[in-house]
């Protein structure tokens, strides 16, 4: 008797759990169907590949944001940070000059290193200053953005060496066995992110500080180190996203990365991670980023909506998608 009870309940629970984790995927499928109905061109491989490829930046950044948010933090500076990292990376490449893989590697190192450093700065101010992450990262958002504008002297920072550009181009436009490199990149980042969050003690600690910081402290979790590391991971993710971003247009402008922070956070929330912390769904986040890009794509492909109202429909779709998810979770 007890045995059967145990078994069946475990199954039911597994099912519940799956439902909850699955709901972003279901929302995605619903959207794809809607897209196909609206415009037959939507379902072409090239369109879908384009969309998923484009979502790579936000997806990669949002994987980092999953860590920060799961740990009970928030990072509004990622968009500006992305612009700054892109700018410095291009300036480094321009400075090094001679086209070659060595130059590229150095530039990439600079990007990821700078991202980590920016994240470290955020993390230290949040933990040691004990200021709301909202304010800290709003502040650094202004700082990073201004630095880009200043470096670009209001204009554009462009990768000047065209040979280097051609060398670098495949990192966005190339593919491996038909799968565009950016998609591979974000799958890799998500896989590593999921591994870290779910399978290491650091990941466990992130969830713990996000669930209840006091309990974590009383359990000997090194709060400051863990929290700072989440911001560093966020920074590194921004760096990686930029590695894929720069070869696309080869430039950084004062508008690069504008509002990416909101998109990243939205992707995280759509993916099922709660903003209050204590829960992180890396794969959900990736799906969230794809959903966002899909909605934008459908807007352009559809012919019903005046360009003035695109934003309204987009907003409404996102709310409806969340409502659908919620009702799926409740009707378990």
């Amino acid at each position, binding site marked *: 008797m007890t045995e059967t009870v145990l078994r069946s309940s475990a199954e039911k629970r597994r099912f519940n759990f799956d439902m909850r984790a699955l709901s972003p995927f279901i929302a995605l499928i619903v959207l794809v169907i809607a897209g196909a109905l609206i*415009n037959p*061109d*939507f379902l*072409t491989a*090239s*369109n879908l590949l*384009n969309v998923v490829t*484009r979502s790579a930046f936000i997806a990669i950044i949002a994987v980092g944001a999953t860590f920060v948010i799961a740990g009970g933090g928030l990072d509004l500076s990622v968009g500006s940070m992305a612009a700054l990292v892109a700018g410095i990376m291009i300036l480094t490449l321009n400075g090094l000059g001679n086209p070659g893989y060595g130059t590229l590697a150095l530039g990439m190192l600079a990007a990821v290193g700078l991202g980590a450093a920016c994240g470290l700065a955020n993390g230290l101010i949040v933990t040691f200053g004990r200021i709301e992450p909202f304010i800290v990262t709003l502040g650094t958002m202004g700082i990073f953005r201004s630095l880009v*504008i200043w470096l*670009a*002297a*209001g*204009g*554009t920072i*462009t990768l000047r060496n065209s040979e280097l550009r051609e060398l670098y181009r495949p990192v966005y*436009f190339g593919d491996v066995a038909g799968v565009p490199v950016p998609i591979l990149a974000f799958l890799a980042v998500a896989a590593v992110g999921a591994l870290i969050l779910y399978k290491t003690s650091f990941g466990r600690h992130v969830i713990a500080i996000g669930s209840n910081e006091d309990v974590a402290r009383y359990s000997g979790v090194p709060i400051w180190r863990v929290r700072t590391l989440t911001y560093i991971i966020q920074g590194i993710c921004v760096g990686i996203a930029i590695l894929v971003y720069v070869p*696309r*247009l080869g*430039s950084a*402008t*004062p*508008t*690069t990365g*504008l509002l990416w922070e909101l998109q990243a956070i939205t992707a995280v929330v759509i993916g099922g991670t709660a903003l209050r912390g204590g829960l992180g769904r890396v794969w959900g986040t990736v799906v969230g980023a794809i959903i966002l890009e899909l909605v*934008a*794509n459908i807007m*352009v*492909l559809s012919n019903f909506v005046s*360009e*003035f109202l*695109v934003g309204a429909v987009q907003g409404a779709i996102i709310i409806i998608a969340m409502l659908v998810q919620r009702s799926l979770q409740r009707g378990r």
Partner: protein
Amino acid sequence: QQKNVTIGVSIPAATHGWTGGVVYHAQETAKQLEKTYPGLKVVVKTSPDGASQANALDDLTAQKIDALVVLPFNSDELTNPVNEVKKRGTFITVVDRGLKDPSIQDIYVAGNNPEFGRVAGKYFKDNLKQGNVVVFRGIPTVIDEERVTNFEKALEGSGVKVIDKQYANWNRDDAFRVMQDFLAKHPKIDAVWASDDDMALGIMEAIRQGKREDIKFVLGGAGMKDMVKRVMDGDKMIPADVSYPPAMISTAMFVTAGQFFANAPMRGTYVINAELITKDNAKNFYYPDSPF
């Protein structure tokens, strides 16, 4: 006998390519003017939106300026605030976008956004004659609205048809994204009106990736140096550009300084028209040292 004059310059913040150019030229001109005219102080202030610009005008007046050079975010919104400054006896130079009440301004250095759209439209009408065009809009603003309406008006009666338009926020990334989607949606596009050079760059990448041969050319706007260079070099995809020089702020500042330091009074309207840049005249528009 040294004359002490303070000129306040209020411009939009460097939030995209063109305004970035404006800020750059304003700062450079300020340095240059202060060197030329001892006793002249130039204070340059940027603002991210209309309401902040109104605030900045308040703050500039608090510093007791003799003249104001203003590139208003928006004519409707800033007419009142500029008028407040005027009431204190400040000399007013308005750049690019005219105020609702022209009697406020002493000098008007007019950019001409409707003309910008017309010139572009005429180019399509003359060179494409007929075919499908997609249009990229900037950020929803009066400038953008004036450009687009006049572009469409200029096309009237020709065989050129606007088959789609979307906002891409004068941003390369957004333009790239929208262009990819346009390419997926429309099997035949003959030409693209990017309406801005930043957006044109994003569009070019999307076209290159999509390997689409049907698109004959992309027309940008504003006269960014990279684009002017391409026109000069005879790039087939970029046969022309429409000028809208951010350097108009310099003109305005020079003229305003002249009001105080040269003997002739400088009043009236200076029109800096949107001009078509082609291979023939491109070198007149090419400033390799500008960041824009």
